[in-house]
């Protein structure tokens, strides 16, 4: 296939060629960045929580004084344990994808000079870490004598289990067991390492900080009350949830059940990522519309060129070109224009990505998005020009003999 005649023909229609190339370039740039944003959101939505979500639910009580905590907890836990199907009822202050009660900044030295980051403290009563189902990869789980009563936000001193991600950040390459972290006057010693445990609110944090959490054992009391973690069989869980809420309403009528935050963990997870699902849906819609408009533009312009060059096509056919030759001619022409547009588009995509990085703190576009964008647009261009090209190929040679 000779490229020279095609280029010579395109030189006669410089303006239209340039316009289509620009359109492809803009479409490529928007496509690459939008796909990258969708991929980031989707990967965030699929974050590994580290807990057995399908088997867990939470009931949240509120509206009572701390002095009544022991009484309320005793009645509520007894009522919840009596619900058939419930395997365990434990107290946990923060719930993955749910209530957030233990977010604080820590330091790795007693003087408070080395800031370690803002992490989530999961303060839980006996049995709560086991109920979560978080996997322990080093060290030990909480033991019976680790659980002490406390006042304020956190216990003043406790042995903790830390996630691997946080350990890697605080002490890269070193064994975290035995290391300590400080929060004001409270200090904690690492005795176990968890594979991962997601924070209650992953969308608000950068990717690497989404699993910065520690588990602090403590005894339920006025400062660890009203937030219950229920574990049951995944099949029983919906019924157990309904029965649990009814049981608590009957057993402790003088407190308020926070129905908005009392759900199964799967429901809480869906609510947490609602926004991101909506954004991903919007981006997909825009991409589809964008590709549609680009394709329609190519179809329109190609049809016009075919109509304009009818005589020329007829002459070529009369001189011996087959239908396949004509078809290939138009497809190659389209391929050249789209390639030109893609080259411009790559540059534009990276420029736009740099702008997004500086103004909106988005991550850098990985390189493999560009070949993917190129392939999609090449395919789109070829499909779009197929219709007009087939019509061109159907031009009979006799057109060459007519003067009109």
């Amino acid at each position, binding site marked *: 296939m000779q490229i020279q005649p095609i280029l010579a023909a395109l030189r006669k229609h410089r303006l239209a060629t340039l316009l289509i190339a620009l359109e492809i370039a803009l479409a490529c740039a928007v496509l690459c960045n939008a796909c990258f944003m969708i991929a980031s959101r989707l990967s965030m939505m699929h974050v590994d929580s580290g807990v057995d979500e399908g088997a867990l639910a939470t009931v949240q009580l509120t509206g009572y004084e701390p002095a009544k905590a022991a009484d309320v907890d005793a009645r509520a836990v007894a009522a919840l344990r009596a619900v058939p199907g419930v395997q365990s009822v434990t107290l946990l202050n923060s719930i993955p994808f749910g209530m957030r009660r233990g977010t604080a900044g820590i330091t790795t030295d007693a003087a408070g000079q080395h800031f370690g980051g803002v992490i989530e403290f999961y303060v839980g009563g006996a049995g709560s870490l086991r109920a979560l189902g978080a996997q322990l990869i080093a060290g030990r789980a909480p033991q019976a004598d680790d659980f002490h009563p406390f006042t304020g936000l956190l216990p003043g001193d406790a042995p903790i289990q830390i996630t691997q991600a946080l350990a890697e950040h605080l002490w890269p390459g070193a064994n975290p067991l035995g290391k300590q972290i400080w929060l004001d006057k409270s200090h904690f010693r690492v005795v176990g390492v968890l594979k991962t445990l997601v924070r209650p609110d992953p969308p608000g944090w950068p990717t690497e900080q989404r699993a910065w959490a520690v588990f602090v054992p403590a005894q339920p009391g006025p400062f660890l009350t009203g937030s219950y973690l229920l574990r049951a069989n995944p099949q029983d869980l919906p019924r157990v949830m309904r029965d649990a809420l009814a049981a608590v309403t009957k057993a402790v009528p003088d407190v308020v059940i926070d129905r908005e935050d009392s759900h199964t963990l799967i429901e809480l997870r869906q609510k947490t990522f609602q926004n991101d699902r909506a954004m991903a849906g919007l981006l997909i819609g*825009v991409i589809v519309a964008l590709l549609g408009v680009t394709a329609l533009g190519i179809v329109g312009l190609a049809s016009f060129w075919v109509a304009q060059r009818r005589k020329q096509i007829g002459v070529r056919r009369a001189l011996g070109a087959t239908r396949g030759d004509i078809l290939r001619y138009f497809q190659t022409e389209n391929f050249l224009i789209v390639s030109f547009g893609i080259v411009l588009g790559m540059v534009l995509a990276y420029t736009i990505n740099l702008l997004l990085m500086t103004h909106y703190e988005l991550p850098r576009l990985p390189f493999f998005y560009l070949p993917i964008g190129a392939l999609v647009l090449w395919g789109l261009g070829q499909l779009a020009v197929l219709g007009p090209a087939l019509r061109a190929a159907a031009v009979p040679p006799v057109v060459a003999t007519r003067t009109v």
Partner: protein
Amino acid sequence: MFGYYLELALRSMRRSPALTVLMVLAIGLGIGASMTMLTVLHVMTDDPLPGRSAHLYTPHLDPLPLNFKTDAMGTNPSQNLAWPDAMALLHAHHGVQQAAMAGGSVLVWPQRADLQPFYVDGHYTTHAFFAMFGVPFVEGSAWTDADDEAGAHVVVLAEALARKLFGTADAAGKTVRLGKLDYRVVGVTTDWAPKPLFYADASAKFYSDADQFFLPLADVLGSKLGDDELQISGNISGWSNFDGNLRDPSTTWIQFWVKLDTPAQVRAYQRFLVDYSAEQKSLGRYQRPPTNAKLYSLMGWLRHENLVPDDVKLQMWLALGFLGVAMLNIVALLLAKFLRRSGEISVRRAMGARKRDVFVQFGIESALIGVAGGLLGLGIAQVGLWSIRQRPDDYAHLASMDPSMLAGTVLLAIAASVLAGLLPAWRACRVPPALQLKTL
């Protein structure tokens, strides 16, 4: 000539229906997407109190210690006022009207047996709040200055809450249990909800639902902020340990708004703030320069707070990029369409039309396509805004078009297509007539 060109344009649109549909579709989609996002942007940056916002100002003082560093969470205590500062500004009476306020939520214990207790959002404020912001009352009135001083247990309810509790908006004189205490209802306001809720704490959501109750600010001083008491929904931050005493001079949680009518009053108030800061510095309480004290106008404050979330801005740029692609599309298609009619143009030129006339003819044709595309875009934008209203974002329920945006849609569509048609029209009017006439 305008009617003639219009007829020509309509005829040519009918002659090539496929091309016309393609162009109208492209413009419609581009305009629809852009207008959806521009409408959202418009409602988020709109004037919440048209007619009054020009006279409302918010003072900000800088009581922070010299060596204060914002912590990892990024809260800046100087965004709010501490109790002693707020009371000093209030009692100085330097503005025409002034009010101190803080956002709050409280547990309502309804007397009706069929209602469970529930939390509502509202504001603790001083009595001038209602007159200053022009809050309309359905019944009763605000409380008095004496109530403010004494910390009386009175409350003003919004109409929706009054109806929910008592079945009717006629609630003045009744009592309602909020938290641990009983409060007497002195007034019921209409469902007043300025968008955005500009007087809320900067860290609270500006687009949250309207306030359902108003209590005297002094009432919250006695609360320990427990679950079953009056709570503050906003930042309580400071630079020394907070021990629960809301009168603490180093803990800020109060917002302050003042009404100033003339520029001279605005300047006088700015001087007053600087003088007050200098006085506090000489007393040893403030450490930073007195000139750090600022006075923001309402719209200036909204701009300073940079209300529009990044997500919304990104979506707007995406929509505008889409419009750009659609416009490039239109340019190419219009070029094809106009150049195809070279013969017709040549006949017109031969009969005496100037290049200018041909240009205007094609300009009108582009504008007609713009009108059609604009109407389609309006429909698509309404669908887009409906889908945004279903979203869980707190600004979502505001997304709807007001008349100015509706007109703006069609105007944008016409402008975009006329712009897109400029290049093709210019190329078309330069076609040499003699060449084309020969091949006719």
